[in-house]
């Protein structure tokens, strides 16, 4: 089933790169990709602008959507298992709130400038927020389930308020709209560099999470049950919190705070694949990637020339899809 998902992903990627407001014929698209990948000579009759649109705009965006979708879904699945809370999403630990504060400081208050400023600011904000949440949770971070959730809520609220403060203080109507755009998430800023960074971070993070698949299974009945099965509960928890926070922070820094994916994809996947983490994590990655790729393609093309933030589409499209799955899936407890 994972294999089928990967095939669907490859096909979707090809399709996504072929669609867009600048009508580039599919044959040319394929030719451009082949040429830039070093597999074929330059296709005839294709302008440098068209080439740049396919290779430097559409392809990085699509790839980023895949990476972000996969990463958020996996982080959501891991955190849901660790906290045993079905409402947990990857932003539990304050990462997205902190990133938003960092981002608006750059977007609106003019702190820093240049290509890296926004991502750097967002990542720095995530780091600060996460550190605060861990500090608030204290030694209970590794021990109990609920302290970290409460600390996360507190941290998230604090940085959300800071974000709002910065916006209200310095923004005018147009700036506020720009901030909203970032808060909803978008892949418009994707570059090959950001794709490479996200791929590296995600790869490492996924490897760690996959290595803990067994331990995550053990958490099904709580921390104590996991301990009796030989899991070093506190250490595993903290390690996975740090890893998921780092992955989420990197992804949010590149694409803003895209919602819904990390919360709902794991549940959707559980309905289909069951709760064992070896399958769950891989399937969440593939499912999240497919979902966000399609949502991004829709956001980018359905209302052209307008470029909607993908976070709008994820919920608008995702909720009905999830409802369908709930009705057809196994009966809820």
């Amino acid at each position: 089933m994972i294999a089928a998902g990967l095939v669907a992903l490859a096909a979707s990627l090809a399709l996504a790169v072929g669609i867009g407001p600048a009508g580039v014929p599919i044959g040319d698209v394929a030719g451009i990709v082949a040429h830039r990948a070093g597999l074929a000579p330059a296709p005839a009759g294709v302008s440098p602008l068209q080439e740049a649109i396919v290779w430097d705009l559409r392809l990085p965006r699509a790839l980023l959507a895949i990476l972000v979708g996969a990463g958020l879904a996996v982080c959501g699945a891991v955190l849901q298992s660790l906290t045993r809370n079905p409402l947990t999403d990857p932003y539990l630990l304050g990462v997205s709130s902190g990133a938003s504060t960092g981002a608006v400081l750059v977007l609106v208050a003019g702190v820093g400038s240049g290509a890296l400023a926004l991502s750097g600011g967002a990542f720095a904000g995530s780091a600060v927020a996460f550190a605060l949440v861990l500090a608030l949770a204290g030694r209970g971070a590794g021990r109990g389930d609920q302290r970290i959730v409460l600390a996360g809520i507190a941290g998230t609220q604090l940085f959300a308020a800071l974000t709002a403060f910065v916006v209200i203080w310095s923004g005018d109507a147009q700036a506020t709209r720009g901030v909203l755009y970032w808060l909803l998430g978008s892949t418009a800023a994707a570059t090959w560099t950001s794709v490479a960074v996200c791929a590296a971070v995600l790869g490492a993070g996924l490897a760690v999470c996959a290595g803990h698949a067994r331990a995550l299974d053990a958490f099904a009945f709580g921390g104590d049950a996991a301990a009796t099965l030989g899991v070093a509960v506190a250490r595993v928890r903290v390690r996975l919190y740090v890893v998921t926070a780092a992955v989420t922070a990197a992804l949010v820094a590149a694409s803003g705070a895209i919602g819904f994916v990390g919360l709902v994809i794991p549940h959707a996947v559980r309905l289909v694949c069951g709760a064992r983490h070896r399958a769950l994590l891989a399937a969440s990655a593939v499912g999240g990637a497919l979902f966000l790729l399609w949502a991004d393609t829709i956001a980018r093309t359905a209302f052209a020339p307008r470029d909607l933030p993908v976070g709008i589409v994820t919920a608008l499209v995702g909720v009905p899809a999830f409802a369908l799955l709930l009705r057809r899936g196994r009966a809820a407890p």
Partner: protein
Amino acid sequence: MPLPTPPRGAGAACLIAMAAVAAGCGGASAPLAPADAAPEATTVRTCDRDVVVAAPPRRALAMEQNATEILLSLGLAERMIGTAYQTDPPLPELAADYARVPVLAEGYPSRERVLEAEPDFVYSTYASAFAPDAAGPRDALARLGVPAYLSANGCEDPSLLPERVTFAQVFREIRDIAAIFGVQEAGETLVAEQEERLDAARTAVADAGAGETLLWHYSGTTAPYFAGCCGMPATLTGLVGARQAFDDEPQKWFEGSWEAAAALDPSVIVLADLTRGGEGDSAAQKRRFLRSNPVTRRMRAVREDRFVVVAGSETDPTVRSVLAAEKLAAGLRRLARRP
């Protein structure tokens, strides 16, 4: 501290109420009266209501830059008790007058601050000035005997907004204000001056605009804001005889994509220079981004350096819009003269 309500204020309040009930008879301007005649009540229509001003105000409060600059351009500095929300430095010819009026806040002043200043007239370009945390609703101000004027392009009710933004509206507003303050002559002078400058711009650009497609880039880098139809950018584009990219997009401003912009291949990009300091606000930042981004740098307008820069505030229907017309005309002529 309660606001003292002079008798004429109470009378004005009653008249406002009656006028609101009898709404629909809204002519725009007041009967013309000589500037120095004895004060008499002026009625103007502003958005959804008529505003009756019993006598030319002596303590006017301007809530944003455009309101400020219109009042100052009409020579009314002596009759202003406050300004707010100035986004750009004042026009050089108004700088001295501007310095004489107290600045109540960098953004919008709070309701308390507004009432504390005891204005007898509040003038705003945007409806957000009448939000509860700013000056408060116009109804509330009316109850206190303070008439409030909102520009036609800022009406809260979208059905009242004009379909297209025109210079005629700006001039009408100038005339309304001039009538309210009893300085109709100054109003006519200002309008005439603006029309003269527009004519001069049209003459200067001649046919340099024909055949050009203008893309108006307001803010943002990777997530850019472009102008759609029917705003001041569209009017300015028409004035110089050019075409506008995205002129079929119904929103005045919208978040677009560079792919869509590149597909239209505009021949000139008009960069709005904002002093906000955020990402993609200054024209310099925009230029840097456009030249470095792998897609935009291949656009013809970027490759051949076909940019025109206007100030951000000039892209709204304000007393400064004429400056944008001049810059646009000059810019297009410069580009046309290139070998």
